């Protein structure tokens, strides 16, 4: 190394995980590495993307490095080219170029056609010739010197003599020395500069195996297979300045140029600049604030009639904050979107903290009266926090896209885009990807991955240590050591880019100056930044979410109106005793927000009698209040069984409505204000510190401030500390009252619909699947228990959706055709179109008119769609299975007698094809054997007194392990049989023995023994013994009549026997490795 000034080298060609499966070190790692080498700057050049730009910018600045934004773009012919932004204009050009590349090509294959893009987009950029896949090196390696020279001249022409550089690589590949010599020679000939790069894909040499694995995932190869994109060696790490200087010692100028280029680049990203759109004002309106004020007051008069002083004061205060912070346009924009939905009859509701605002209420954005509820505007929009307000809107799920389309039309396709999400590696996805790459058999990987809960990839080891279903001994865990290690290393890596379900960004100028746009699967333009990054970029985000409940409510309302023309959803009485009776019984399956086992158990004890109780319920069943042990005191106080007390009289007015319990985030803010005299903004900071469980230091700081201020106001230190601890205890998970209130109204109304219009509401719920907590089979069961039969599939009566039919004065729900497995929109259309002409007279008639693929046709037959035309379902199935050579499907009619399926076989077929059976629950068919074995129905069990032991059997629904106060695992599940539901609790010791039965990935029917528990109207079973049902009532060697008759003359479906689930229903799973045989009765007589 020469003496004199220190050489400054900067890595200008660097990939992060945002190269999606082509970068193996986190941005944090890369930035820390460059900083540790004393390099003054670092560039980020991911493939065809700047998704990492915001995170990189912030990390680099924090580490004292200059961030250089760039990308390695893919050109025609698959050539690579590195582009670096020299300044904000360069960054905007880069975004525009990347947008051209993405939108102008097939999805997932972005290609930049440099010849076709406007020349002005090629300014303010540096272009580097790229790795070996760059055009110039590629041609040189193939000794096509003349072509390489031509290409170099072309790039020089595009980017200018001082904008284009040939890259000398330090990669230790065969031929690198010769290639670098040729590049240097060429640079001299065409008069462009040289830069030294290392094509960095990870920080340390030791990270290479991970990168190789990611390459395998990306190229769909196994480790032992070859693929041209897999790298020969571990030479793509972040190298030190000394190492780069040594490796490229013949080219000191190329090293120096990197420092010079970095020096000349200005930071390209401008964070913290607000880029909100102006709302297009109607003619005659002066400015956004005055227009907003007019709309708010118009709305206020609609909502309140006479405006009291208090109302005006509150509106004025809110308007002042909104307008001072420059959000008037944003509120107008949201109000406009809601107005559009209203006009088009699209059901819509604002959720979240926006309901803390009286302005949003008056604008019709939310339905919660923030003034009469005393809700705090500060929770929604702080005057001290320069953050964007966040208004989330829910729409009828089926019509959300119409609303989005309106936004695109109104603000222009170039100014609106969907927010992206990064699909990041978690335990299951990492196990699947890497397991495959490491060559494990697919079934094994599937079995392994399904055992894992929804947990981070870095929590695999902990899960293996703690979860019995993973430790059960049937998993060869030692085989997976390397796999688990690799998974942990990629925890949280973005794997690919997806579309956020509801988020749209709207810009004040074309978005491509801030973010590249690319096409999402749905065909919408999506930006390369997620919701957080978008915010940092200063763009305004609008969340248009879809809520299936709103669709179900809409659909049910429409269906109710057919028979009850006076019905009006908006005028449902808010104090219907029968509705509260239903809620108090805990029979709330299907009720929005109140249907989980924990909610049903709560409702069985709470004795809700008004909307406030529902609001509290929505907020109570959350991890925070549960962990903070708030549920029991709340219920006891609500029932008057425990006195309400307050730590200080100041708390009484704030906590009175929640019986002295801190339930809502708004209350945290109010307490901080009342006790410590915090300003509204300070109080919200306190809430945020607590909510986001930030650093301990921050918590201590605010604690001392809180205590000191309280003492100043004459409050005892001990009391002040107690109050603070109480807040800190559960505010961490507290719920926003405004949000709870918004949801509570819908919860109550859906309960009302179930009480008074169960057929219409459950039909709508079944049509809108998937929605709610329970699978459709449970909804069908609940409908049946409420006297609404599920009517079988019928090719002439079943519609597109579930419909309500009158049957002998009673309403029933007809199964929809859409429910049939394999039914697509096209098939549905063709069936319904043909049926409009005339009802189908026979199966043959149907086949003549409608052409369906064979699998779907079989499903229709087996699920009973033709039962009314052909009473013998099995015979029809058999006929369908005949060889169709020459004469067509029905040329020959067999003469042998074919007995029809038995009831339980039909039930099982329907269960498989429809997800439930109109004939009832499969357990029905095992009942006599269960009775003999001493098993009760869940309905019988629910009638038993507390403390009684019982045996029950059924299908487990949604077993889950919520966080508990003690930190011990408790499993909750709902057991389902033909008579109803029974909520089951399984404590840690039992779960340790039987974890695999519950979370093994197969949904096996269970036989349980336990003790009945009663609290108020809530009944449950605490299970202390679990077995798979087949152990109790016989396995494969069950009585012969449980076996389907053998097919003659070639079965209608190869391997179709697996569908006879009543047989298989009680059999052990084929690959389970569990012993066959009936009735292991050890300990069974203990009852």
């Amino acid at each position, binding site marked *: 190394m020469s003496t004199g000034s220190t050489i400054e080298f900067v890595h200008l060609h660097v990939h992060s995980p945002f190269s999606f499966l082509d970068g193996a070190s986190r941005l944090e790692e890369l930035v820390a590495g460059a900083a540790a080498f004393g390099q003054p700057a670092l560039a980020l050049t991911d493939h065809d993307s700047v998704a990492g730009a915001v995170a990189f910018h912030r990390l680099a600045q924090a580490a004292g490095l200059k961030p250089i934004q760039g990308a390695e773009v893919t050109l025609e012919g698959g050539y690579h080219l590195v582009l670096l932004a020299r300044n904000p204009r360069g960054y905007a050009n880069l975004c525009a170029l990347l947008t051209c590349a993405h939108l102008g090509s097939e999805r997932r294959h972005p290609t930049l056609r440099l010849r076709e893009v406007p020349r002005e987009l090629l300014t303010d950029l540096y272009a580097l010739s790229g790795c070996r896949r760059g055009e110039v090196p590629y041609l040189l390696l193939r000794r096509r010197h003349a072509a390489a020279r031509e290409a170099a001249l072309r790039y020089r022409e595009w980017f200018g003599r001082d904008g284009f550089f040939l890259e000398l690589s330090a990669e*230790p*590949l*065969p*031929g*690198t*020395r*010769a290639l670098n010599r040729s590049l240097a020679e060429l640079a001299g000939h065409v008069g462009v500069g040289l830069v030294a790069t290392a094509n960095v894909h990870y920080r340390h040499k030791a990270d*290479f*195996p991970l990168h*190789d694995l990611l390459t395998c995932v990306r190229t769909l190869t196994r*480790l*032992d297979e070859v693929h041209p994109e897999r*790298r*020969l*060696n*571990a*030479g793509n790490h972040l190298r030190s300045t000394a190492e780069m200087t040594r490796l490229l010692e013949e080219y000191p100028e190329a090293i120096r140029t990197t420092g010079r280029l970095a020096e000349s680049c200005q930071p390209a990203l401008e964070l913290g600049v607000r880029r909100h759109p102006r709302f297009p004002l109607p003619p005659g309106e002066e400015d956004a604030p005055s227009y907003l004020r007019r709309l708010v007051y118009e709305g206020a008069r609609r909502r309140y009639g006479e405006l009291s002083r208090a109302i005006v004061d509150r509106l004025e205060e809110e308007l002042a904050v909104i307008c001072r912070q420059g959000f008037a346009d944003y509120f107008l924009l949201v109000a406009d979107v809601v107005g559009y939905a209203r006009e088009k009859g699209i059901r819509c509701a604002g959720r979240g903290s926006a309901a803390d605002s009286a302005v949003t209420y008056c604008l019709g954005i939310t339905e919660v009266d923030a003034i009469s509820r005393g809700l705090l505007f500060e929770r929604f929009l702080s005057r001290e926090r320069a953050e964007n307000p966040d208004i989330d809107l829910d729409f009828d799920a089926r019509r959300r896209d119409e609303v989005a389309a309106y936004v695109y039309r109104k603000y222009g396709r170039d100014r609106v885009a969907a927010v992206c999400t990064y699909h990041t590696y978690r335990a299951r996805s990492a196990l699947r990807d890497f397991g495959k790459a*490491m060559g494990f058999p697919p079934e094994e990987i599937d079995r392994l991955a399904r055992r894992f809960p929804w947990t981070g990839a870095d929590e695999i080891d902990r899960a293996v240590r703690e979860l019995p279903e993973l430790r059960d001994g049937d998993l060869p865990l030692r085989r997976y050591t*390397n796999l688990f290690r690799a998974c942990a290393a990629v925890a949280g890596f973005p794997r690919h880019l997806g579309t956020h379900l509801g988020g749209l960004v709207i810009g004040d100028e074309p978005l491509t100056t801030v973010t590249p746009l690319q096409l999402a699967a749905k065909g919408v333009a999506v930006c390369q930044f997620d919701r957080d990054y978008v915010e940092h970029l200063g763009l305004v985000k609008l969340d248009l979410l879809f809520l299936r409940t709103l669709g179900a409510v809409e659909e049910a309302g429409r269906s109710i109106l057919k028979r009850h023309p006076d019905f009006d959803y908006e005028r449902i009485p808010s104090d219907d005793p029968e509705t509260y009776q239903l809620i108090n019984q805990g029979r709330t399956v299907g009720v929005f927000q109140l249907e989980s086992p924990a909610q049903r158990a709560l409702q069985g004890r709470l004795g809700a009698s008004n909307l406030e109780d529902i609001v509290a319920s929505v907020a109570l069943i959350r991890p925070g209040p549960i962990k903070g042990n708030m549920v029991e005191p709340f219920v006891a106080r609500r029932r008057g069984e425990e006195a309400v007390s307050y730590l200080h009289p100041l708390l009484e007015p704030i906590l009175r409505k929640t019986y002295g319990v801190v339930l809502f985030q708004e209350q945290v803010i109010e307490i901080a204000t009342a006790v410590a005299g915090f300003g509204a903004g300070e109080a919200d900071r306190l809430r945020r510190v607590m909510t986001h469980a930030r650093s301990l230091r921050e918590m201590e700081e605010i604690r001392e401030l809180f205590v000191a201020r309280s003492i100043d106001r004459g409050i005892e230190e001990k009391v002040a500390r107690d109050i603070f601890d109480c807040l800190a205890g559960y505010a961490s998970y507290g719920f926003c009252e405004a949000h709870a209130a918004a949801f509570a109204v819908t919860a109550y109304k859906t309960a009302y619909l179930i009480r008074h219009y169960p057929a219409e509401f459950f039909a709508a719920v079944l049509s809108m699947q998937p929605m709610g907590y329970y699978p459709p089979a449970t909804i069908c069961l609940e409908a049946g228990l409420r006297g609404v039969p599920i009517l079988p599939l019928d090719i002439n009566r079943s519609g597109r959706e579930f419909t309500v039919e009158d049957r002998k004065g009673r309403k029933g729900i007809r199964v929809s055709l859409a429910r049939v497995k394999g039914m697509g929109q096209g098939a549905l259309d063709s069936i319904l179109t043909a049926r409009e002409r005339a009802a189908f007279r026979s199966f043959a008639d149907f086949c003549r008119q409608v052409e369906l693929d064979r699998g779907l046709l079989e499903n229709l037959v087996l699920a009973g769609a033709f039962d009314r035309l052909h009473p013998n379902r099995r015979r029809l199935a058999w006929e369908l299975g005949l060889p169709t050579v020459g004469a067509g499907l029905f040329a020959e009619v067999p003469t042998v007698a074919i007995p029809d399926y038995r009831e339980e076989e039909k039930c099982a077929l329907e269960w498989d094809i429809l997800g439930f059976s109109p004939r009832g629950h499969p357990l029905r068919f095992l009942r006599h054997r269960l009775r003999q074995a001493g098993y009760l129905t869940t309905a019988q069990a629910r009638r038993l007194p507390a403390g009684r032991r019982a045996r029950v059997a059924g299908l487990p629904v949604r077993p889950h392990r919520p966080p508990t106060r003690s930190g011990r695992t408790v499993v909750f599940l709902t057991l389902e049989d033909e008579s109803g539901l029974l909520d089951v609790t399984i404590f840690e010791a039992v779960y340790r023995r039987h974890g695999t039965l519950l979370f093994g990935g197969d949904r096996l029917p269970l036989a349980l023994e336990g003790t009945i528990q009663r609290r108020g109207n809530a009944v449950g079973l605490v299970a202390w013994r679990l077995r798979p049902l087949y152990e109790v009532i016989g396995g494969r060697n069950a009585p012969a009549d449980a076996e389907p008759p053998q097919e003659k003359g070639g079965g209608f479906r190869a391997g179709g026997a697996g569908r006879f689930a009543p047989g298989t229903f009680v059999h052990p799973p084929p690959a389970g490795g569990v012993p066959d045989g009936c009735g292991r009765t050890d300990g069974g007589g203990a009852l």
Partner: protein
Amino acid sequence: MKRVEVRCDSRGCPVKVRWRQRSFLVRVLDVWEDTGAWWEGEAEKVFYRVELASGGLLELYRDTGTGKWHVYRVYD
């Protein structure tokens, strides 16, 4: 692969190779690394393509696991 004795300079680059019972001065033409089947525990190899002072080309590699040199390929 055939073992071979190699004398290196201070940076680890081969300067002299003893091969077929004779010593040759060599000049390095190219260097690269090959990580091989890392998942089977293979160590990285560093390859050198060298020109013998007497004419002829050899490809040698040093197994970084054992530190031993081998002849990979001979161009006669």
